[in-house]
């Protein structure tokens, strides 16, 4: 007993020193590993942020200039020599409203047939009398649809006849490209998009301030356009996307949440539900273009829904979003602590009461986030829409989800492929900025709603 008591401190001291040096050696190794790991982490975060910044930087660099486009300030003379038309009819005392309507329309048709191109031409020519310009030179400078604007101005206010008013006319896409430097100025004159005279004039106007860069509101107020690319906008695509978003919210969210609640809370656990679960998980991984094929086969070919309609698109996107919503909702339900269920069941609440009074309310933030992410994913989807004809060129605003329309991402796809490359590249980037802004807004709503629900819970 004594012997061992005496010997043990000795032996332990002898044993501890090699142990200690071993521990110290391993300490160095462990610290090294930690430092390396931290370095890897920082490096990968830096690379990731670098890529994101590069992406956003490129998009912003390309897209922001497209939010401004050149307008030409000219004095437009409503020359009676060109505008040869009788005065606008006024309601006569003995005239029936129908007859007046007819006379008015008749007058408007006559106004439309006037040579409005000549008015545009004359006003531009008057600004620079010293430059020899053909009518084509001038038409190449001013956006095609501006003559209709002048016409509408006159129809609304016939008193303009004989007067001269300053108007800002939208410059054509080619002027935009020339002034922004999106075309190489050194290439031969016959290969330039603008005729020589128009180029000279554009430069002179830009220098003396008669051409200025105005905010490109057409992006938000116009639909797509081919004969006047300078006036092409995103409104039609935006409305199309909006319809589809509403359809997804109305269809995919209630169906998805209800299926998730049933599968998670009420369904018996057996082969059939296992099979359903596996299939739902697989559906979430199905490439979106396959959903497009399904939509073309089922909604277009079988149910004969109109081609290119947001209704068909919305249905396809709903199918695509369903698995996301179901999986996320089930995850949210599964995350509810069992103690909450026990509390309700122990009080004598039925299963339905337990789910709807207690379990579901705490999952609202999760379900909401999942829903908004699902919806955002859906409105950013392009591939399935191409297969149901939503890549059509549509210049009219869709009035209902049954009308032809495109969607924001599809419009980006269309513009990116436009043959007028140097003009549409910045415009595509601008459209991407708008789409991303819509996405960010949706996510911001998700975050706000989520924090509000969480505060309440």
């Amino acid at each position, binding site marked *: 007993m004594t012997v061992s008591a005496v010997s043990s401190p000795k032996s332990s001291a002898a044993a501890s020193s090699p142990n200690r040096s071993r521990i110290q050696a391993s300490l160095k190794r462990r610290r090294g590993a930690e430092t390396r790991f931290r370095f890897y982490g920082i490096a990968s975060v830096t690379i990731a942020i670098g890529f994101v910044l590069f992406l956003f930087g490129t998009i912003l660099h390309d897209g922001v200039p497209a939010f401004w486009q050149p307008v030409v300030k000219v004095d437009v003379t409503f020359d009676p020599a060109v505008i040869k038309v009788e005065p606008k009819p006024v309601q006569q005392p003995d005239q029936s409203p129908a007859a007046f309507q007819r006379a008015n329309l008749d007058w408007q048709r006559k106004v439309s047939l006037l040579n409005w191109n000549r008015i545009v031409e004359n006003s531009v020519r008057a600004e620079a009398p010293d430059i020899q310009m053909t009518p084509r030179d001038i038409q190449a400078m001013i956006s095609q649809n501006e003559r209709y604007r002048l016409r509408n101005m006159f129809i609304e206010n016939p008193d303009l006849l004989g007067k001269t008013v300053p108007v800002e006319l939208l410059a054509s896409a080619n002027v935009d490209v020339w002034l922004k430097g999106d075309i190489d100025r050194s290439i031969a004159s016959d290969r330039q998009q603008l005729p020589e005279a128009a180029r000279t004039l554009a430069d002179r106007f830009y220098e003396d301030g008669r051409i200025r860069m105005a905010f490109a509101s057409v992006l938000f107020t116009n639909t797509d356009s081919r004969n006047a690319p300078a006036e092409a906008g995103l409104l039609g695509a935006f409305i199309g996307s909006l319809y589809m978003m509403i359809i997804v919210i109305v269809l995919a969210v209630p169906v998805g949440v209800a299926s998730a609640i049933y599968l998670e809370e009420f369904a018996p656990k057996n082969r059939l539900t296992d099979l359903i679960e596996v299939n739902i998980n697989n559906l979430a991984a199905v490439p979106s273009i396959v959903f497009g094929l399904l939509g073309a086969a089922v909604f277009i070919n079988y149910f004969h829904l109109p081609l290119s309609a947001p209704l068909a698109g919305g249905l396809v996107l709903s199918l695509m979003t369903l698995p996301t919503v179901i999986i996320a909702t089930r995850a949210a339900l599964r995350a509810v602590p069992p103690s909450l269920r*026990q509390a309700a069941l122990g009080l*004598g609440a039925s299963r339905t009461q337990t789910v709807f009074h207690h379990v579901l309310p705490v999952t609202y933030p999760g379900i909401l986030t999942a829903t908004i992410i699902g919806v955002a994913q859906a409105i950013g989807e392009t591939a399935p829409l191409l297969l149901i004809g939503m890549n059509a060129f549509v210049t009219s605003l869709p009035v209902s989800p049954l009308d032809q329309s495109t969607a924001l991402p599809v419009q980006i796809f269309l513009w990116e492929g436009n043959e007028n490359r140097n003009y549409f590249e910045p415009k595509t980037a601008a459209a991407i900025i708008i789409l991303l802004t819509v996405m960010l807004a949706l996510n911001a709503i998700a975050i706000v709603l989520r924090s509000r629900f969480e505060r309440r819970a």
Partner: protein
Amino acid sequence: MMFNAPETQKMNANVAPVSIPDPASVALPKTFQTVRTPDPEPRQVRVHAKDVSVFYGPKQALFDVSIDIPEKAVTAFIGPSGCGKSTFLRCLNRMNDTIEGARVSGTIQLDGEDLYDPKLDVVELRARIGMVFQKPNPFPKTIFENVAYGPRIHGLATSKTDLEQIVVESLQKASLFNEVKDRLHEVGTGLSGGQQQRLCIARAIAVSPEVILMDEPCSALDPIATAKIEELIDELRANYTIVIVTHSMQQAARVSQRTAFFHLGILVEEGPTEMMFTSPAEKRTQDYITGRFG
């Protein structure tokens, strides 16, 4: 061979039906026998369980437990972890139904009514046998809503004032009212642990159950909160039949009138608390109480 110690002579065959040496039970191993000691003055039996076995899938968690739970008294279930005391408690209001793969055999009666009768409505049963859980689990709603929820779903209150009265009375009975009367409409999860547990007790009382089951109600609480809950249990005994599962021997000794000792899924011994803690009949009980195992 069956009755191994002289103390077991106290055992009364009338309250221990399983112990009658009939051929079936003779075949059972010795460990399946429960040593029973009746109360000096018999109490009315409220819950009567006979040969209750519980299986979780293929695993048997409880072996032929038979026990009578007296009215207006606290019965404590003690035993080491995993001995089946919580499992048995959950059988009494059929909370085991909610566990996947759990199966219960044997009979449990409340006032002679079979709890496992397929025609019986579990929802009604749980209104009659309330439960307080190990971890305080108030709903993430206001204090008022927590207590009002039970009466509301069972339709116990006929008017708003009626409901308010039930809430106030329940909180008073749970001796929580004075602490929360100014913040009835604040969230229940914002209370301290002990207050939360008393809120859960108030919530259970609000539906006026006949029996209250408590599954280690103080295991997550500090000694002061524990003392308050124990005091409360003692007060509630006057009106309710209470069954409490506890890991704390002192707690069982303090609050209960009868104690049942479980070990490895078997009800080893049950009897008046005083006797159980001073002169237990079974060696295993003795060993557990004196801290030799468990």
